Structures are given as C-alpha cells and as structure tokens.
C-alpha cells in the first residue's frame, strides 16, 4: 500500500484523536507475578478472572491465556517471549476471551495462532472477530454429508471418498506423504468454491515456506489461508493454532459456503498441550498426556460439520493429520483421533519405498460417511475395485511361495498388479473425477490386461490425452450425467478400444 499521506492530514487525524481522548480513570483488576518460567506464569490476585480469559503483562507488552484457576494463584500461558516478564510484575485483566479476525480478508494470507499476519503484508482487513473456542453446531443445525469433496487423488476418491463436512484422518509414519496428500487436496479445490485453511503446527519454518511456495506456484494460495505455529513458537501458540484456524474456517461454514481445513499435525498439538499441562502441574496420564487430551481433539474436530439448509447449508471439512512411530496406530493419540474421525487414510513406509505412491494402504483405509457423498459414476466403477484389490493382496502373499498357479489365480494376480499400478499418481498432479473414472473403468473391465505392467502408466497418460483431444464426447456426457449411463459407457468404450488396439500394435 503506497497511499500518500500528507503531513497536515496526519496532524489533523492525530488532533482529532487526542481531542476525543477523555481523561478517564482507568479501572483494572490486577495481579502480581509470583513465578515465571517455561512460558507459564503463576500469578497472585486477579480474583475475578475467568478461565480462558486473556491478560496483559505490563512489562514486555505480552499477552497470556488463563488456563488454571487455583485457590491462591492463577496459571497463565504466555504468548510470546517470557524472558521480558519478571517476578513481581503487574498482570492486568482484559475481560476478553481469545479471538481471531475472520472474513474474506484472510484468503491468501499467512497468519499466526492469534490471527496476526506474519507474511510481511498489510494488516488483516477483518470485518469481524470470532472467539477461538466455540461450541460445535448442535444436532438440529446439521445435515448429513452428501456432497463430495474431490481430492483429485484416484485412490482416495475411489476407495475412501470424502464428503463435505466429513472428518477424514490422514495417518502414517514420517516421510510417507501425509502433507502432500493434504496439499494436493487443497490444490484440487481450485474453482470449486471451497476456501482452504492449512494449519501448520510445530513444523519447521522452512517446511511452511515450502508449502506456501507450492500453493502459490499452483495458484492455490488465493483461496487458502495458512495458520502457522512453528516449532520455534511457544507451546501455547501451537496448542491454540488449530482452534484459531477452525474459528476462521467456521466463519466460511456459517456464511453458507464450503471450507476445508487441514491440521498438520495434531500429534504436535497434543505434545504442546502435554507440555503446558505438565508445567501447570496437571496430573499426567497415559504417555504423560493429561486426562483431557481426548477432549482436546474431539471438541476441535466436532466443529467440522455440514450445516442444514436452514443454517445456510455451508460445510467445514477437516483433514487432521497424525504422525505415527513405526506404524504403531495403537499409540494414544492415533487411537483417540481414529475414534473421533469419520474414517482414516493409512500411509505406509513400505509401500512408499516400493514406489507405490501415494502410499495408501487400501485395505485398512476407510471412509465412514463419504460413500453417500461419492459420485454415482465413481460408485458404479469403483465397486469392484475394492474387492479386486483385496483379493489381490491376499493372493500376493501366497504367490510368493507358489511356483505354479492355475490360470484363474494368475489372472487375478495380473489384474491386481495393474490395478495397483493405476492407483499410483504423481505428487501435486490432481486428476478430475471424469478421468479417474475412465482409468479405473479401464482397469476393472480388463482393458489393461494385455498391457505390460510397466506400460500401464503410459497407457493412462495416453488415455487422458485422448479424452482431452478427441471429440470430447465422454467428458461432456460424464459431466452432464455424473453416472455411468449406457451413453457414457459407450463413449468411453470407443476410446478405450481404439487405444488398446493401438498399444498392442
């Protein structure tokens, strides 16, 4: 912003403000810092304070959040540098609950857990603010999930479809492509009227920069807000970031639009909360997490919802990410979040290293409500895919030992290998649903059986090209009907037959 401000203009504004400034007595409720350290202050006084209220410290210009109310002191988590606060300092009540700016001014911005811009840009033009902790919509306010949220990733849209308003967990070890899945989903929302929110919790700053670069390069940043509480931010910020992001996304949901929020990742948030709780001397439980760590995540994810038409029909879809250690999904946080969400997508290191990317294990990945939201065409096509893949996995285990197999078994193995091949997809390349259906149709109907496994992806590329180039009959029909009507099927089969003849010669 380079608006020229003339000095006399500044002077008149200041004059007005100073003139309007009343000499009123400041009445405030104060307390005194008893001790401070590790981002936690214990404060004596503040008798009327409420849990969750914001306080300000006179020195150092920092704010804090009241977490513990005890008989003779108050436990306060400090946002920012705690080294500037000293014992004996004055703490003031603000009478406010933590809130963040919301509205369309946030799109394309990078903000911290309190909604302050950290991208070096102008101040956020917010129409209103919202409390960070809000109760999830009630039962009457909701509708069931029935519109699809296309991720643009074949294996997800086919096997674990996600609906608008659903909570689908992405879970896996480190370096298995969890973040990439979420980013690809955001990229695929271009032109879909879904506002995206990416909450980075406890990540490296360099990683956040990378994500933002990818989003910018693919033109996704204009409808995305990044909420970053990085590893070097204080634990209270990392604890709060998902709630702030959720408050911003809820505004979109409550104004009758669609939002997608990615929490990357909730393991780090739980760890930040564990740190806070232990420093506040709350009793530790399993894995030293406090007793309310389940509620920490359940109240957050419960805010994802599809609203009823009476409430505007907006939706908030959540993609929480949880990192496991050595594929152990029976650890505390993974089991908690699995039981809260409406399904999960498992990523495995072995598959990833074997070149099966995205490294999704289709056997144990499920979507509990997304099936209702899946496009009819996809449902008709992918129905046999799940079964074929399951049979393939079972046989593949046995076939390692068997030297000769009967023809039926071999056929099933061959089919499975090709299906696994078409589940592969490059990173940051999303595929529209019409093309997804086309290639899965080709796989399940046997059009690939005569093509060598190594050539399957080449065939896929050829098919997509052909669908675009040739009289776009199939794409038009598909986008009209959204189902595998005889017309659509015939149009697709024509293309497939021509292609498979070509590839054989």
């Amino acid at each position, binding site marked *: 912003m380079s608006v020229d401000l003339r000095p006399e203009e500044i002077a008149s504004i200041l004059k007005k403000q100073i003139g309007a*400034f009343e000499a009123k007595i400041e009445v405030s409720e104060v307390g005194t810092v008893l001790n401070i350290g590790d981002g936690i202050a214990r404060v004596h006084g503040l*008798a*009327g304070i409420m849990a969750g209220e914001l306080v300000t410290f006179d020195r150092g210009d920092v704010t804090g959040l009241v977490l513990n109310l005890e008989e003779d002191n108050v436990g306060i988590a400090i946002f920012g540098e705690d080294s500037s606060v000293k014992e004996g300092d004055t703490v003031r009540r603000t009478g406010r609950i933590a809130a963040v700016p919301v509205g369309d001014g946030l799109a394309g911005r990078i903000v911290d857990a309190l909604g302050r811009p950290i991208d070096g840009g102008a101040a956020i033009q917010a129409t209103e603010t919202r409390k960070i902790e809000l109760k999830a919509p009630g039962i009457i306010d909701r509708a069931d999930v029935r519109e699809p949220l296309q991720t643009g990733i074949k294996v997800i849209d086919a096997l674990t479809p996600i609906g608008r308003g659903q909570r689908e967990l992405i879970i896996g070890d480190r370096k298995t492509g969890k973040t990439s899945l979420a980013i690809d989903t955001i990229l695929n929302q271009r032109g879909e009227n879904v506002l995206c929110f990416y909450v980075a919790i406890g990540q490296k700053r360099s990683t956040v920069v990378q994500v933002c670069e990818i989003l910018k390069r693919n033109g996704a940043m204009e409808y995305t807000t990044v909420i970053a509480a990085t590893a070097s931010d204080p634990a209270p910020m990392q604890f709060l970031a998902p709630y702030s992001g959720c408050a911003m996304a809820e505004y979109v949901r409550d104004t009758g639009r669609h939002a997608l929020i990615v929490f990357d990742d909730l393991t780090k948030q739980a760890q930040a909360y564990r740190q806070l709780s232990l420093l506040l001397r709350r009793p530790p439980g399993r894995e030293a997490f406090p007793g309310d760590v389940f509620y920490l995540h359940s109240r957050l994810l419960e805010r994802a919802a599809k609203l009823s038409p009476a409430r505007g029909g907006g939706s908030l879809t959540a993609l929480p990410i949880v990192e496991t250690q050595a594929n152990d999904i029976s650890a505390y946080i993974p089991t908690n979040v699995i039981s809260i969400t409406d399904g999960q997508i498992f990523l495995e290191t072995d598959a990833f290293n074997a070149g099966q990317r995205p490294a999704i294990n289709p056997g144990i990945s499920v979507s509990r409500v997304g099936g209702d939201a899946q496009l009819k065409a996809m449902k008709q096509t992918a129905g046999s895919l799940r079964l074929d893949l399951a049979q393939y996995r079972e046989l593949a285990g046995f076939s390692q030992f068997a030297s000769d197999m009967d023809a039926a078994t071999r056929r099933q193995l061959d089919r499975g290998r090709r299906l696994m091949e078409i589940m592969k997809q490059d990173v940051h390349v999303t595929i529209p649903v019409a093309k997804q259906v086309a290639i899965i149709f080709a796989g399940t109907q046997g059009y690939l059986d005569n093509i060598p496994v190594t050539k399957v992806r080449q065939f896929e590329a050829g098919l997509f090209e052909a669908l675009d180039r040739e009289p776009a009959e199939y794409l038009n029909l598909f986008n009209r009907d959204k189902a595998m009507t005889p017309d659509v099927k015939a149009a697709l089969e024509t293309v497939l037959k021509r292609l498979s003849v070509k590839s054989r010669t």
Partner: protein
Amino acid sequence: MKIPPRAASRYANALLSLARESDALTAVSADIAQIRAAVEQSGELARFLDNPMLPQETRRRALQTLFQSRVHPLTWNLLMVLASKRRLPLLPAICAVFQSIEEAGRGIVRGTMTAALPAAADAVSSMADQVGQRFGKTVLLSSRTDPALLGGCRVQVGDIVYDCSLAARLRLAKQSLAGG
C-alpha cells in the same frame, strides 16, 4: 510478593474463632498487632523465630520472658502450640492473616495510594472515603510515593486498581493512537 502459607490461615482462623467464642477478640487482636509490630521492628526477634537450631526449652523460655505477662492467655497458648510444633517461623504470616480477616469481618479493607509526590494526610483520607463509598466498606489507605507515575495518583484496593496517574493516561493515549 508472597502468598501466606496455607497453614498460616488455618492457625489464624482457629485463633479468631476461639477469640470470638471467649469474647476476647479485642484483647487478642491487640496482642496480634503488638506482636506484628514487634517482629517488624526487631530483626532479632524475626531471626529468633526463624532459627530452627535453638533447643525447645530455650525457645519456650525466651517466649515466656518476652510475652507471657503481656498477652492474653489465648495468644499465649497459640505461641506455645507454635513453639511445640516448630511452627514459629509462621508467626508473622499468622499475624498478617489474622489481622486481615479480623478487619474484613468489621468491613475494613486496606489499600495503598501511590502518588508522584508525597500526598497530604487529608487528601489520603478523603480519597479513602470516596473509594470506601464505592465498595460499601471502610477503606484504610497507606500512602506511598513513586515518581514514575509523573503526576496524579493510583489507588489499589485488593485486586482493583483505580489509575488516574499521568503515566496511565499516557499509556492509554498511546494505545488509542496505535490502535487507530
């Protein structure tokens, strides 16, 4: 700033209710005020109370010569109980808690008035009256000076601060200018 230990308020409450029961509140409060003043004035007494190395007998005898003849039997009993339970270091805290709850029972609260320049005694008392009317209680203000306030004064009663100092006004003005 130190929070009185919880034990101190237990002893103080016990003493207060005992004093009320035996109609000796005035005498006991006078004793407590006297002990508090004595501890504040004499560093030696404070060190004596804090010293854990003295044998039980010495401690008892010293207390006897200092207090037995001058205080109400109830107060004396408190001292003996504290001595035998090795709780004498708590005595100053017990006195402070006793006074504040005894005063609270009579509708008295204490506060401080801080001013940039030494305030006249009648200014302090009229301020105390005004603040007292707001609270519906009798307010006793102790006066302090702090040049950092620049001008005006600040009154703190309990956790509530009425700040009409120049420093606070400047801070508010700065906030309102920065906030646009």
